[in-house]
Structures are given as C-alpha cells and as structure tokens.
C-alpha cells in the first residue's frame, strides 16, 4: 500500500530529474537565458500582492484616486521587478573553473567563473551546491568574478558535484528566479590519511635509508691532487695561487635511498585502512621532500619526488579498485 503511494512520487521525481537533464545537459560553461531561468513569486511576493489588493479595495471604497494610484504603482512595481529579477540572472555566464582535490572528510574547492555579458551588474546571486554552504555573490563593476565553493566529500575516487542551483530574489524579494546547472567538473578525493608507524618488516625498504654519495656536481666535497686531464675549471686556482700546488676540486651529488611504500606492508588490514595509511605516508614523505615509490597490486610507481609525483601517487590511491584508471594523467611522464 505504501509502496503504491510512493510510486507516483518516485515517478514524478525521476521524470523531473530526466526533464532537467534534457533541459540542461552537463556542460562546462553556459550563459543563463530564458530557456534556463525559472521565475515565480515568493511568499513575500504573494503577501505583497494581497497588501496591494487591500489598498485597491480601500481606494475603490473611498473613491480615492490617489489611493488607487498607490495600488497601481505597487502593481507596476511588482511587474517591473519581474523584469529586474529575471535580468539579474539572464546574461550571466557561468563556467566551471579549477577544482582542488581533497581528502575524504575535508571540503573540496570548486571554482566558478562568472562573467557578465555586457555592462550589466548582478547583485545578491545565491549559489546552492550540494551540501556546500550557500554563498551570495555580487558582480558589480568588474565583469568577471571567481566564486570558490566548498563541498564536503565523503568518498574517495572521482567526485562530480550534483546540479548547481543559482538563485536570486533581487531587487525586491517578491520573486524568485533560479536555474539549475549541471556543470561538468570534478575533483579527486584522496583516502583519509591515517597517522601510523610504517611496519618495518621488509628489510632494506625501511624508511630511514642512509644517504648514498656518488660523483656529481651538487656539493663541494674536498680537494684531490691534480692529475693531467682534469678540467682546468675544476682546478682550485686560489689554492694554486697561494701554495703553487695544483689541486682539483671534487664535487659529489647526493641521492636518497629509494624508499618503497608497499601495499603488502599492511597485509591483514582492510582495503580502505591500507589506503589510508599509505596515503598518510605519501603526504608525509612528500612534505619531507624524500624520494619514494609506491607499489599497489598491479601498479608500480617508480621512486621519484616532487609535486607531480605526489599527486600521481595520491591519484592511484584514490582510484584504487574503482576502475577509474582511464582518467590517468597524461603527463605522468613528466613526473618520472
């Protein structure tokens, strides 16, 4: 019985959903126009209409032209404000800007770029987006503006925010104009980092690797006796000038021991737990500027360091087991 009652509601919901989808398909950028803007009076607006009806009746009853005039003025105000409220959305160009990745339980940052078509000002435009906090924006004078919206994320993987609602009641609050936009934007949600001690079972893959020295050009290491064939540029001329003996400067480069963060190191834990721990270590080692590699089942990222490396490792962790790997970055090459 209840199911029977619920069915029409579901049907209605799914119908309106699909209607909205047809009416506003996923897009990167669009300009609000009459096809997308809906407008109806608010409760205040209805109250306002009732009030002016009362004034009108008063004007009729007391045969008072000026009281009638007031009611006509208010009707006109209402009608004109339809245009203004509509105009406060129409022509506004909205495009998805950059998004910032986030960890589970944090808020992802999405940027909306607003552009005005002409010299038009837009005031008190509200953005409602998923579970994010609604935000009001004025676009006055300057013709473009970026709005940063914070959306809480609860699941790792790629996150596409739901439909964005843009609403305004400006200028009189008597009417509500709004539009739904399905913006084609997404961000990556990394597993929630969990602080832990790295298990030291795998010898040689410990995290406290010693530093290995080899010939390089980074740091001055000392002097050695000049041998014919050494580059004259490496000769310590100042020493020669002082002592008359020829020495060559020796430089060394440093390289970290290659650490490996290994999926198997956390054997026995649940998948999400393992990912959370690895995630912690990826951020930790990256912050320390260390070189490390990542091994997940079926994936191996060679040791490297730097921002790109970090984000690639995090991406792998975020998408692990989600079959989302076709989103693989193009410029992985640069990271290696």
């Amino acid at each position: 019985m209840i199911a029977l009652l619920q069915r029409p509601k579901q049907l209605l919901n799914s119908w309106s959903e699909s209607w909205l989808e047809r009416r506003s398909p996923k897009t990167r950028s669009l300009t609000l126009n009459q096809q997308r803007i809906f407008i109806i009076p608010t409760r205040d607006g209805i109250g306002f209409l009732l009030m002016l009806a009362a004034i009108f009746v008063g004007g009729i009853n007391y045969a008072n032209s000026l009281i009638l005039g007031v009611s006509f003025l208010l009707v006109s105000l209402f009608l004109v404000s339809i245009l203004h409220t509509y105009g406060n959305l129409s022509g506004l160009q909205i495009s998805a800007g950059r998004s910032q990745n986030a960890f589970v339980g944090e808020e992802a940052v999405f940027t909306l770029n607003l552009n005005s078509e002409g010299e038009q000002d837009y005031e008190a435009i509200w953005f409602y987006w998923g579970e994010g906090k609604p935000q009001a924006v004025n676009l006055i004078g300057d013709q473009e503006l970026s709005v940063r919206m914070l959306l809480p994320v609860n699941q790792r993987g790629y996150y596409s925010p739901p439909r964005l609602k843009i609403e305004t009641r400006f200028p009189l609050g008597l009417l509500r104009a709004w539009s739904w936009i399905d913006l084609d934007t997404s961000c990556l949600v990394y597993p929630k980092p969990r602080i832990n001690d790295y298990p030291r079972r795998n010898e040689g893959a410990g995290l406290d690797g010693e530093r290995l020295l080899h010939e390089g050009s980074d740091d001055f290491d000392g002097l050695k006796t000049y041998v014919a064939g050494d580059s004259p540029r490496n000769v310590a001329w100042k020493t020669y000038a002082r002592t008359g003996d020829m020495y060559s400067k020796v430089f060394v480069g440093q390289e970290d021991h290659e650490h490996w963060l290994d999926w198997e190191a956390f054997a026995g834990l649940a998948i999400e737990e393992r990912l959370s721990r690895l995630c912690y270590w990826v951020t930790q080692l990256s912050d320390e500027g260390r070189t490390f590699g990542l091994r997940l089942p079926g994936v191996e990222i060679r040791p490297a360091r730097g921002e790109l490396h970090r984000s690639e490792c995090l991406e792998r962790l975020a998408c692990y087991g989600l079959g989302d790997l076709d989103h693989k970055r193009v410029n992985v090459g640069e990271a290696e």
Partner: protein
Amino acid sequence: MENSQPIPRNSLVWLLASMFAGIAPHFSRLPLWVIAVCLLCGSWRIMVYRSRWKLPGRWIKALLVFSSFAAVLGHYGTLFGPDAGTALLILGFCFKLLETHNRKDAFTVVVLGFFVVATAFFYTQSMLSAGYLLLVCFMVTAALIGLNQTPLQTDPKRTARRAFKLLLQSIPLMLVLFVFVPRVAPLWSLDLSGSRAKTGLSDRITPGDIAELSRSPELAFRVEFEGSIPDTSKLYWRGLVLDHYDGATWSRGVSNNEQSLMDREPMVAGFNGEGIPWQASVRFQGDQYRYRVIMEPTDKRWLFALPAARSENRRVGFSRDFRLLSDTPISQPFSYSVSSDLRFSLDTSLPRWLAQRNLQLPETGNPRSRQLAERLLKQSKTASSYVTQVLTFFSEKTFSYTLRPPRLTGDRIDQFLFETRQGFCSHYAGAFVYLMRSAGIPARIVAGYQGGEINPLGGHLLVHQFDAHAWAEVWLPGQGWKRADPTAVIAPSRVEQGVEEALSEEQSFLEDSVLSPLRYRSINWLTQFRFAWDYVNFAWHRSVLGYDAKLQADFLSRLLGPVDFKKLGLIMVLLTTLVLLGLAGLLFLNRRGHSRDPLLQIYLKFCKRMAAKGIRRMPGESAGEYLQRLIKKYPDKASEMEELTDLYTQATYSSNYSSNGEGSQQATLSRMKRLLRTL
C-alpha cells in the same frame, strides 16, 4: 536567503528614514500621545542600531500594544474607520520596528510602510503631498531592496539608485493602469468622519459681527464651463438659503411648529436619479450653461451652482429651495457637472407652509424699520414696486460698502438702517429681507459666492473664499422667486468687478494675508505665476483626483469610441504587455552595449549566410581557414569570397582603429556590402 537572516544595516537605514517620513504627514492630525509613542519607538530603534540599547522584552512589548489599543479605543471611541485605523496602523508600524529582528519582520514593516503611505491620502490629496508621498514610497522601496542585498553591499546610495530606477520604470505602467482600470462603484458604503474644521461659508449669518469671510484667499471651487462664461454680474453661486431670523442671526433653523409642515414634504430628493416631487415648481426657460464644478473639501453637504441648476450626478440631490446637495459631506475634492438655465421661474405658486417660513420674523423689535416698511408699502402699488422702493431707499441714503463696519447691538436692523449705514453684503441682505418680510412679502437670504476670476491658462473660473457673498430672494406673485441684491445697488463694482475693486479705497482687501499672492494682483508676473500654479492644480484636481467612472467613460469613449468592460480589459492587457515589452527591450537590448566594429558585423553576416548554406565557421577558425573550406565547396564564388575575406582581414588587422581613415573604411565597407550581395 533565509528569512531568519539579520537585516542588512543598509536596509535598516532606509527603513528608519521611511518610517519617519511616512508618519510625518499624519503628525498634525494624530493625538499627541501617538506621536510621542512613535518618537519613543523610533529613537529606541536608533539606539539599538547604534548598539547602545537592546530591543525591548516581550512583556514591555505586550504592555505597549495593549495600552495603545486601549488608548485608541478611548480616544476615537472605535477601532475601525480611517482615523482610528490609521492611528492603529501607525502605532503598529512603530511597534513592529521594535521587534524587527530578521528579514521577515522587516518585510512586514515595509508592507506597513506602504499602507501608511496609502492612508495618508485619506487626509491630503494635494499635488505637493502626492509628490512627497511618492518620495516616501521611494524610501520604502529602497528599504525593501536593501533587505534583499547581501551584507557585502553597504552603499545606501546604490540602493537608492536602484529604487529610483524601479519606481521610474513603474510609472508608465501605473499611468496605463490608472487610466484604464475600470472605476467601479464602492463595494460597500463608507463614511469619512467630518470632524475636521474647514474654512468656508457658515450656515449662520450675524450681521454686525466682525467680517471674516471676505478676507480668506483660499480657493472655494473651480468651474470649467463647456462654452462661454456668463458675465461676472450673473455669477451668483447659490449655496445656502437662510430663512430664519432670531433678531440677530440669520440661520436655517426651524422652529418647532414648522417641523410638522416639513414632514409633509421631503426637503431633499433626487439622489441616484430618483424623482423630485416638487419638479413641477421649477421651470427652465433657456439661456443654458453647462459646466463642471471642482470643489475643495468643505465637510458640508451643500454644493454651489448658478440658478436654476440641475445635475445628473448620482451623488447630487436637489433641495426644496432649489439648491444642489451632495449625499455625503464633501471631505475630499469633489467634482460634479451641472447645467443651469439663467432664465427660469421657481415656485410660481408658493405653498402656504413655504410662504409662512419665508415671512417669519421675531414678534417684536426694530420698530423704525417696520415703520419704514409700512410707509414704503403704502407708496407702492405692487410687490415689485415695493422692492424697487426699498432698493431706491438704499441707493438714496448714505450707505457705504466696507469690510470694517461698526458693531451692532440691540435692534440691529434699525441701528444699521438709520444710524451706522456702513456694512457689507450680509448687512444689506439682512436688512432687505427684514423690510420685505415686514411688508408681508416672502423673502430669504441666499449665501454663496459671487463672481470669480478667470484663469486665462485653463479658461476656467476660480472662486475664492473672499468671493463669498450674501444676497436676497423675494417671492413675487406670478413670477416666483427673484433675486434681489441690495449690495449691487450700494457698491455696483462689488458685483461687476469683485471685492477688491469695491474695497479699493479702503485698502482692506486681504489685509491679513500679507503673503497671499492674491493680494498683489497688480504685480503682473506674480499673477502669471499664480495662474500657472492654479492651472496645474486645476488639472490635478480635474484629471487625477476627479478621475471617476464618469470622467473615465467620457475620456475613453472620446479616445476609443464606445467602450465596454471587455474592450477595456483587452486594451488594458494589451497596453500593459506593450509597456512591459518596451521596458524589457530597454533593459535587455541595452545590455549588448558593445558598439561592434562595422567591419566585423558585415563579416559575421557573411558567415551567417554561409552557415545557412551548410558550412558553419568554427569558433577557433580564422577567416583564412574558413575561406579555404568555403572555396572547396563553392569554387565558382571563390573570387568574391576571397576578396571579401581579404578586405575584412586587411581592414581589421593592418591598421589600428585610431588610425583608420574614415573615408577608406567607408569605401571598404560599401565594397564588402556589395560583395555580400552577390553571394
């Protein structure tokens, strides 16, 4: 956008300002304690705004509300009707301000604000106050806009600009609605209380008391004639008939034994088109004038018209003494159309009860006057020759016209006729009627206005309070009631040229109204200005305040031919849509305000034409690449397309806008247009 959000301070500024401005016009009428409460609430709110005080607690508010209800009830005796209602509304407006925490409360205050503006029109309808209340409307609108702005927006001037824009754009639509929305009859009958004192004619005349009336420069009414205007000497605007004399005062008073007579026949009839029982006693005999009188409020029912008048206005009735009367006291500017035949006969046979009324005199007093009447009556054969005798008496003796007559006591008529012999219209009219009645001829005093001033701008007549006049009517057998104006005998200029001329030696004309421009009629530009201002006011009264169902029907049928509700509704919807569309065009077309490069426009036209043929230019495609694609598809038009593209590219990119020679650009443009036509 939640309703529980705090009010932006920007809005609060406008809200407070509009509250004070909205209540200010009511100050002069409201009881003092209401004003005190208003001021208290306002300053409390300001202290809250400045974070000095806190909003009052619930108990204080409850106490305030309850006690003010009680006080209003005590003061007005009711909670309903415009006066008490307005007082309550204003109190509510103030109290609401004190409990305004969030947007929702503020919205209520805004709504109340609009109401306060509307109620102000119950009491004042002048053009200036309408302008002022429009300003208050503007402030309330600004407050409403402020409510819907974000707290980031703190510039009250910006809010004001927006409000101004909105109101300005609403006005055309308002005018359309004002003109076309059908004026229907009141849904239920309401009475505005007439307690407010107005200057004007009094229904009691006591000759011998100090002259007052003739000195007020205020306007009594305006008259718009359909054709020519009669001579000034014929402009006797009847308003009141005074037929009872108690030895000092002429009034409409009715003694007890006459009451029974009055009950037999109704004294007033003819409202809403119903019949008039004494219709037969009026005979219209031509010399007809049609005109419209636009009256200032008097709070009395009597109306003014030339004799013998009739009106088809449903609110206008007709009295037994042939005056026009309104169904309710005139509390707002009121206009009615009248037609008057200046040749007429009234009551050719006088009913006995009416004759008795018009022969009434105190039993005793004024012996010398009665002797005079007797003496003159003996010398005359007929009633009309007696009238002539009396008027001759006035002209032969040393009577003079003045606004500063000596005071009279005791046998006032005797004193005036034989001792002081100085007075103005009511002295003469009073003495004249006394002499008539003493001789057994029915007579009565008529009070009203005489003359008027023509405004050359509008061609209409202005009748001021100083034009007030009193004259007499005598009943002559076979002829009925005839006008007799003894003042005209003593000071003909009063009737022919007005009071000012009559008083030119005395210099007492408007001597109390130093600032009245009427006093300086000899200054030409001032007169011009006065006429202009009057004309504007006249138009305001006639076309705006007086825009009633009849005027609307007249106006619209003149404009559109015969109208009915259906047609009217259709036209209204059509016009409203047109105005809104025009406004939308103004708002939205203006937006693509980029003045586009004419070269680019032609080139885009070219692209559009080609797109229609099936090859659309991609956004990232340059003119050259597009050309290549086009040539592949239409090789026969290659040379034209190439030239057009080359012209566009070179003209656009091989010179800066600034260094563009006008002539060569024109040449390029016209060449491009020609090429475009071949494609």
